[in-house]
């Protein structure tokens, strides 16, 4: 793979930046061929081993982005009469994940699923329901409660070329497999000098649920984010859940897919045809002019709820679902910052060492000259998640706080 150094003097790779208000979740080809954001004062070229430098857009794939303005909701947004005439099919987020998984298992016999209760039980969140009957016990494997070893086994199998999808019943349980994920999954490609690739997908639900208690409400993206060699993505809608699942399975890198316990019953209409979502790309949820709000996973819905209030008050927020937690899509984010000059980050991680902390640093370092105000970061409180409902509500960011923050930022 080629690398490039500052000041090489080669031609700057100009990015064909599409207009910001139609930068929707494109259906891109799997190989992430992208050029680098043009930075003020810097000039360097990204040269790839396949020689291409451009952005590849699939011309067939312009799906009008549906704005989801409700917070976590289960009601469908179209009446039964019209749903039959619209293209695509409606389903819930967990069904979208299953569809993506099933399609990939049909497509590639090397894909297998390992996890607790994924087989005969059908998955604790029904993501793998029906797969064991269809594909058999060797491809959908029920493991004992032994995260450290079955994650390790998944990684070992991936070293030979299999493509396992390892499920943590709750992301928090994967803390037991931290050694395997950090040392073996993330680093083996590097320490073996490129001999082994680890095309594994590690997925599971995390985040603060409904009074699940401290140990079952963890946000592991903050712990995993500094492991070199892995990619992290967080899905938030049925559309991107299926797309990201498929892209993650097809990726040659190890990918950790973060789902959220409260988002499994979201309903959306998704296309019938085959599509994937780019793993390194952020999603423009609502274009705007006044402030950039960066968010992901469940907080997207809190932000959109706050956005309704903000619009009534006369503000025009631009909401971006960053989706890719590692690496950050600094291209989309940068274009947005250059337009609005104000950034608010809304996340579910803890204040200390969370994704928001890294994102704040990344945006400050790269786009400091474009900022008119310091970046505000709203995160969860640095406390174990309490059981009592009212207290739990106060650990995470609520729409009212988002509204206040935007008002403060735009003063």
């Amino acid at each position, binding site marked *: *793979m*080629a*690398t*490039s*150094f*500052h000041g090489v003097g080669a031609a700057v790779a100009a990015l064909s930046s599409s207009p910001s208000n139609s930068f929707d979740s494109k259906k891109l080809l799997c*190989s*992430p061929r*992208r*050029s*680098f954001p043009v930075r003020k004062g*810097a000039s*360097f070229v*990204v040269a*790839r*081993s396949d020689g291409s430098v451009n952005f590849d857009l699939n011309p067939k794939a312009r799906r009008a982005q549906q704005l989801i303005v409700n917070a976590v909701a289960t009601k469908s947004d179209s009446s039964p009469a019209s749903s039959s005439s619209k293209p695509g099919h409606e389903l819930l987020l967990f069904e979208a994940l299953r569809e993506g998984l099933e399609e990939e298992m049909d497509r590639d016999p090397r894909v*297998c699923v390992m996890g607790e209760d994924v087989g005969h039980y059908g998955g604790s969140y029904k993501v793998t329901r029906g797969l064991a009957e269809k594909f058999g016990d*060797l491809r959908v*494997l029920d*493991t*004992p409660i*032994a995260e*450290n*070893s*079955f*994650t*390790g*086994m*998944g*990684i*070992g*199998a*991936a*070293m*030979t070329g*299999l493509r396992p999808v390892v499920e943590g019943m709750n992301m928090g349980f994967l803390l037991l497999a931290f*050694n*395997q994920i950090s*040392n*073996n999954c993330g680093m*083996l*490609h*590097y*320490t*073996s*000098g*490129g*001999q*082994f*690739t*680890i095309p594994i997908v590690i997925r599971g639900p995390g985040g603060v649920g409904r009074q699940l208690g401290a140990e079952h409400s963890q946000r592991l993206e903050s712990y995993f984010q500094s492991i070199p*060699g892995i*990619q992290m993505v967080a899905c938030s809608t049925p559309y991107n859940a299926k797309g990201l699942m498929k892209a993650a399975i097809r*990726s*040659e*890198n190890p990918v950790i897919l973060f789902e959220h316990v409260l988002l499994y019953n979201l309903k959306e209409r998704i296309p019938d045809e085959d599509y994937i979502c780019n793993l*390194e790309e952020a999603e423009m949820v609502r274009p705007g002019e006044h402030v950039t709000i960066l968010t992901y996973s469940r907080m997207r819905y809190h932000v959109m709820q706050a956005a309704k209030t903000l619009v009534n008050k006369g503000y025009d927020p631009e909401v971006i679902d960053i989706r890719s937690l590692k*690496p950050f899509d*600094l291209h989309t984010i940068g274009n947005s910052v250059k337009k609005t000059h104000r950034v608010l980050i809304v996340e579910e991680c803890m204040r200390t060492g969370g994704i928001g902390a890294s994102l704040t640093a990344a945006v400050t*370092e790269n786009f400091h000259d474009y900022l008119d105000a310091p970046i505000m970061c709203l995160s969860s409180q640095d406390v174990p998640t309490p059981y009592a409902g009212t207290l739990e509500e106060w650990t995470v960011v609520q729409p009212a706080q988002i509204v206040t923050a935007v008002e403060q930022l735009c003063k």
Partner: protein
Amino acid sequence: MALSQLASSSPSRSVNLLKPLLSAISLHRPISTDTTPITVETSVPFTAHQCEAPSRTVQTNAQELLNFFRDMAVMRRMEIAADSLYKAKLIRGFCHLYDGQEAVAVGMEAALTKKDCIITSYRDHCTFVGRDGTLLEVFAELMGRQAGCSKGKGGSMHFYKKDSNFYGGHGIVGAQVPLGCGLAFAQKYCKDEAVTFALYGDGAANQGQLFEALNISALWNLPAILVCENNHYGMGTAEWRAAKSPAYYKRGDYAPGLKVDGMDALAVKQACAFAKEHALKNGPIILEMDTYRYHGHSMSDPGSTYRTRDEITGVRQERDPIERIRKLILLHDLATEKELKDIEKEVRKEVDDAIAQAKENPVPEPSKLFSDVYAKGLGVESFGADRKEVRATLA
């Protein structure tokens, strides 16, 4: 030459009378590559747990014995040379030497094919060589040069050779056993009819993930063989101070186990062949290799604070694997003392040449810091310390 054929194929003692005559006549008798079977008994019988122990009688032949001798001589010489290089500060960091344990590596290779997988922890130099790794790759990697098997980026604890199914080379003890069971799972999934040998030490034998992985392997009937290289010391802690039950071959409980004299290459070969056959049909089995390391745990450990020098010299005199093979070769008159010494001299030269070549080899380019982080480049940017001087794209 007819006379030499007579000499090498005849097992009887009468050949001794002809010996001086033969060495006088045959100025250059080629080292025997005879494959007529020779039957040898292992030093001690096998001890079995939940299975039938294989027979003590092992079939071997001249070619195999001489290969054992040569391979073990290479490994021994390589490790001693690594010791000197470390003291000369050409090898840095951690360096864990395998001398004394060579019989496990060569015996295992004799029972396996390159389709079978081997995975071990950080004491991996000799296992790598057994899997057709070259001496240049070893020394270059130890010295952090480009020609190393991991391009200089892995180091002593991270040797890998994908084309020979050698999966490393792992720094965190015990973590390689679930990986090994994953390899076995992949073999079963792809119907390879091959097995995986996951090696670990008596120190790692107390890791929980071992038992987790063994449980899953037994449930799913995977062709995994867990090999405990018991050199009786987990770094500085003797086995009886670390394990309530140091009978490692029995700790699999429901999984069968076999205790093997790990200093006897032929016993190791017999046990591994038996284990391979067992695992392909009946799932996991544990092998405990009773072996010994002459060096300390690593180069920073003198190895004498927790054991006596007498113990070390005692084992070296009575159980040294190379000496055992040498005696066998001389007993069956497959080569003369002088020929064996010549082999050792040749090996020494080979090792010295490889070291010289490795010393010439350049260190990796700075841009290689950022290569191979991801399998497919993402355009992720990485910065140098001051965030201005170096800007590179992670590839």
